[in-house]
Each structure stands twice: as C-alpha cells, then as structure tokens.
C-alpha cells in the first residue's frame, strides 16, 4: 500500500492561495512516458510521452481518431472497462504509476474525475446525482454534511442558483448545458485533484459552451484539468498548455500561445491552419 498512499487525496481540501499567472507553471502533476495502447491487434497510441502540470488547463487537440480521447481515458484507467484494450508504458500521478498492481482503480478514479462528451446524468434526482460519489466513497458522515457537499459542489459548478429550489427534480430534466454542469458538480463532489474532460462542449450550444468554458477557467484555481477538444478556438481560450495529436502520436506539446503562434512542427501548423483535419 506504500505506493498507493501517495495517491490518496486529502479528505478535506481547503482552497489554497496560488498564483494567477498562467505562465507560472506548477511542477508536473502527471508524468507520462512511452505509452502505447492497443485495441486487440490495432495500435491506437504510439509511444506518447508528456508532462502535465497541476492547477492549470492542458488541452489535447487533433483530428478525429487521432487517439486523444483514448489517451485521456488511460489517465483514470477507464480503458480497463473496454474489453481487448491493452495499455503499456508509465503513467505517474504525483510520482505513483496508475497501472501499478497495488493501485485500486476505484480509489484512482475518486482522485481523477472525468466529464464525458455527452452529458450523462444518472436517471435520478439532481441531489442524488451529486451525492452519488460522496455516498459510495463514504465522504460524508451525516446527512447535513452530505447536503453541504452537494451545495458546495453545485455552487462551484455554477448551477446552484438555477437548481436550488428543485434538487429533487430528475437530473435528466435539465437542459444540455445544465446537465453538463451537473456532471461537473458530480465530479467535483468527491474532491478530485485532476478532472479529465472529453470534449465536454461538443454536444452544447454556443451559450452553454461559453458558460462551461468560464467554469473551466474558475476550476483551474483548484484542479489540474485536462481537456480534449476538437475546437482549436476553445483550446486557445481555455488552456494554458496544448498538446497536438496526430495518427496516434503526440506531435508537439507546449504553452498554448506558442503552439498556436509558432509551432515547431509543420504538421501542427497544417492542422491549425486547417490543411489537415
């Protein structure tokens, strides 16, 4: 259990004061070396290595099928749930390999939250959706504490004002954008350190998208956020660092500004200017 000890989130976190300067990059939260992913005989990712800093937003961009979502799912071992999927290489969070035998994916996923492409609230009430994580992980010891966590999470996700009077309404009754913020609140409720977002705005209208983007910008004060997006504009708006994937390989990674204004690789240039896609 020694290795997994380092993976445990502190049970109660207080928001620590930190720098607002995006250029001041924190030490690497996630360190990834030579990751290969196979679906059966097909190789989906080819020796990807990248460092992802904490308390900032890192965007993965690239054309469809380039492996960016697959890569994202390696970080919280969601690929375990796909039959025939095999992951090789080292993925370390705070220095501990997530694929280590002693690491319990259940504990790992409590520390690494995830938001999916399509909002997927459970067919339960709004309250129960947010309370789900704290309940299964036993975070709240009393009903009032649980209510406090739900309220705090909904507030952080910017949804509290809209739903505070109808917490018992089904989560599926909300609009698409609200559902996505509900899902984000659900992820926040267990105090993760990292939040993975897999094209979180692709199913939303522009106004809802703008709200989510604002939210992401707020959340970066507290969480390490990794976002997969196929909108380069979105990557430019929300992220501090950007990584470009193409054909299962990581082509280039660096500060967002640099990638968009002065990429080193010609393929990145081609993609950004719309020549490949």
């Amino acid at each position, binding site marked *: 259990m020694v290795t997994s000890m380092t993976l445990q989130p502190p049970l109660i976190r207080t928001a620590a004061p930190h720098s607002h300067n995006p250029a001041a990059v924190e030490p690497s939260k996630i360190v990834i070396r030579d990751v290969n992913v196979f679906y059966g005989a097909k190789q989906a990712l080819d020796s990807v290595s990248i460092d992802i800093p904490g308390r900032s937003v890192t965007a993965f961009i690239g054309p469809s099928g380039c492996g960016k979502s697959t890569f994202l799912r390696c970080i919280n071992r969601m690929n375990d749930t796909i039959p025939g999927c095999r992951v090789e290489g080292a993925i370390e969070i705070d220095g501990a390999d997530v694929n280590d035998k002693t690491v319990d994916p259940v504990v790992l996923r409590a520390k690494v939250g995830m938001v999916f492409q399509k909002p997927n609230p459970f067919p339960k009430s709004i309250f129960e959706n947010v309370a789900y994580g704290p309940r*299964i992980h036993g975070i709240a010891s009393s009903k009032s504490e649980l209510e406090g966590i739900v309220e705090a999470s909904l507030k952080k996700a910017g949804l509290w004002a809209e739903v505070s009077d109808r917490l018992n309404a089904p989560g599926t009754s909300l609009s698409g954008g609200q559902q996505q913020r509900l899902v984000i609140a*659900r992820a926040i409720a*267990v105090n993760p350190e990292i939040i993975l977002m897999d094209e979180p705005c692709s199913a939303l209208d522009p106004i809802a998208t703008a709200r989510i983007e604002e939210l992401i910008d707020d959340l970066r004060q507290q969480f390490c956020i990794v976002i997969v997006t196929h909108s380069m504009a979105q990557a430019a708006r929300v992220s501090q660092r950007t990584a470009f994937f193409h054909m299962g390989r990581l082509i280039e990674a660096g500060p967002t500004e640099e990638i968009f204004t002065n990429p080193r690789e010609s393929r990145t240039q081609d993609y950004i200017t719309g020549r490949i896609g």
Partner: protein
Amino acid sequence: MTILIALALLAAFSASVYMLSRRRAVALAEGRSASLHSLPGYHGTWVALWAGVPAALIIILFAIFGARIEDSALRAQVPAAVAELPAERQEVFWSDASAIARGQTPSEISYQGPIGEALAAKTAEARRLSVIGLVSVLALSGVLALCGVLLAYPRLSKDFRARNRVEGWTGVLLIACSTLAVLTTVGILGSLIWESMRFFQSVSPADFLFGTSWDPQIAMRSDQVAAKGAFGAVPLFVGTFLIMLIAMTVAAPVGLFSAIYLSEYAGPGTRATIKPLLEILAGVPTVVYGFFAALTVGPSFRAFFNWVGAMLVEGPMDPLGQYLMTVQNQMALTAGVVMGIMLIPFVSSLSDDIINAVPQTLRDGSYAMGATKSETVKRVILPAALPGVAGALMLAVSRAIGETMIVTMAAGLQAKLTANPLDTVTTVTVQIVTLLTGDQEFDSPKTLAAFGLGLTLFTVTLALNIVALGFVRKYREQYD
C-alpha cells in the same frame, strides 16, 4: 378429393390463360416491348388472377363451410321418429346419417323400425345433398373462371396498366395475411367468450370466481342428484398463484443474476459459450420438463422430505415429522421448482437485453466516479433498468401462469385451498386439460367450465402482457 382435383384443374386453366394473355401482350407490343406500359408477364398474371382467384375462393369456402350447410339443410326436416328421441340421441342420429352417407363408420347404435327407415331416408338425402352441393359449386366456379377471362382478356392493350393492377392484387393479399393475426385474436376472444357465456348460464360468474369448492367430477352425469357440481375456481387460482410464486422465487434471482453476470462481468468468450447453453435450456419442450419433474424431481423431493420426516419423528417436532413422512410426489414445490428452471433462460435473456440497453455513458459516468462494478449495477444500472426488468418479470409471471405441461404432469388434480408448498395443488391449466381430454359431451357444464377457465387465464395473461410490454416499450424508447 374431388375438391383437390377441381383446384388442380383450375390451376392448370389459370396457367394456360397466363400463357395466352402473355402472348397477346407480346403481340400488342409489335416487337417493341418498351412500347407496352407493363411487361407482358404482368398482363398474363392479371388475366390469370381473374380466371383463378374468384373460382378458387368459392371452392375453398365450400370445402370449409359446405359440410355445415349440407348438415343444416339435412336437419331442416325432422322425421317424426327422430323428433321423439331425447336430444342427445337426435345428435347421434344426425351424425350417423352423415357418417353413413360419407362412407365413414357410424356409432354402434342399431336403428330399427320407423327410425331405421328414417335413417335410410336421411342417408339418401344426405348423399343427394352432397352431390347437389358439389356439382353446383363446381359449376359456379367454372362460370366464374370463364367470366373472369372473358371480362379481363379484352381489356389488354398497349397502355393497359397491368403491373399496377397486379400490384393491387398483391396489396390485397398482403393485407389479408396481416388481418389473419387480428382474426386469430377475434377467434380466441369470440370462442372463449361465447362458450363461457354458455357456461355462465348454468353457473353464475360470482360462484365461479369466488367459490371456494372445485369438484367438477360430480357433474359428469345429468341424472345424478348433485348434478350441478361445484365450480368455485378459487382453489385453482390459489394453486396457480402458489406454483407461480415458487417458480418466480427460483427464476427471478437466478435469471437476473445470470443476466447481470453475463452483461457486466463475463468476458466475450464466456458470454459466447454460456448464452447458447442457456438457450438450450430455453429450447427444451415443456413436456420434457414435465417428464423430468414427474420422474426425477418429484421422487427425489419426496424421498428427501420423507427422510427429514423420519429424522424428526419421535423428537420434539414429532407432528412435523409425521407430516413430512406422508408427503407425496405430486406437490406444488416440484412443479414450481421445475417451472422456475424453465423460466431461468427466459428471465435472463430478457433482462440481458434490457441491461444491455442501458447506455454505456451511464456506466462510464459511474466508473469515472470511482464506483465499483457492483455499486454501478446496484445504484445506476438496475434503477435505470427497473421498468424494463419489471416488465420482463411480469412476462415471466404470465408464462408461469399459462404453462401447462409441467403442472399437468407434476402438480396433481386435487383442488385444495392451501398455501403449503408440500401439498398437492392444481392449477387453471391442469383443470382445462383434465376437463377437455376425457370423453364427454361437448356441451356439458364440465367441458364448458374449461372455457370459463380459459377466458380467465386469457384475461389475466393478456393484462400482464399489455402492461409488461408497455413497460418494456417505454423503457426502450427512453434510451433509443
């Protein structure tokens, strides 16, 4: 036989009409087949349909209803000697007259004197009627076939829309076939309601539905004192319910957990082996389950309970021991358990479909929160699938209620009002089989009671099915 020959002749006639009309269409085209509106084959088919179909319909209708019409014509005049006979004997007389006329074996009753003469006369009349009927129908169909050709053939022309006409016929045929399914329902409802009405003339519906004594055997003969018999169906309902409950106690957990394991835990390899094996269990005919219940499960259960009883006798639980010693092969438990086995694959495959219909995004959402598989199943998948699973279980209940062979072979015939699974009980379906497989007059209350039971069974299963299918359909639409 004559009818088959007539139909064959008609088919041959239609075929030649087809050839003729097709040739005519080719001639109309004057070598440029594109100048025809429709292909020559359609012209041929259209005329052939008019030649063959109306005539064939007449012949087939005659084959189905002819005997009945002849029969009622025969009975229009009742000879004086026959009128004196009691009603059942009159029936026998008429069926004997028709049987002799058709060259079949009549009943063993010998007819002498005036009634013998009446029989001879009626037999001759029956023969005459059947000849008249056959000849007139054949003549009518011949006329129809000719008229069909004479009316249709002259209409062939270059611009005649033969294909559209043939497709019109096809449409009618398709609609007729679809209507058959509706007719089946009408037939089921009609016959059940009609015969039940006749039953309820002698036994009041309230006595039937709420009476607690079932003993139809008394009503076998009309001259007996207690001719009314006892037709209180409550013991049958209780027996049916008891066996269904036992069956669901076996099938629901095993079937549901199998489905959960197969859809959430098993790898593709395991799934590919186990699913077909369970399908074998589903394909086994119910009579085989009945055999298994009667000759394997029943005796072993009895042996087991008798053994337990022998252990308990003369101990502190002596009365229970004494009771267990007397347990018989035919008990509710045997039939219920075997029926439960039969329903396992039914429950598991339905639930499997339903669990698989829960979108993967919900699973992903739960796993991404750090839930274990069992937490995901219990807290997300099952609540989401609940209406569907409830529907599946209701369909299984409906199957259990309507299942016949297992209970007929393993449950017993005694109508007891009991909730003891070790006791012999009987069910609605068992009683239907028992009432109808003996040699009785069809119109006795005893046989009609079977239709009363059938109507009850149909109503209950139909209600269950409609509700269950509604649940399942709504559930599917939710995730489509």
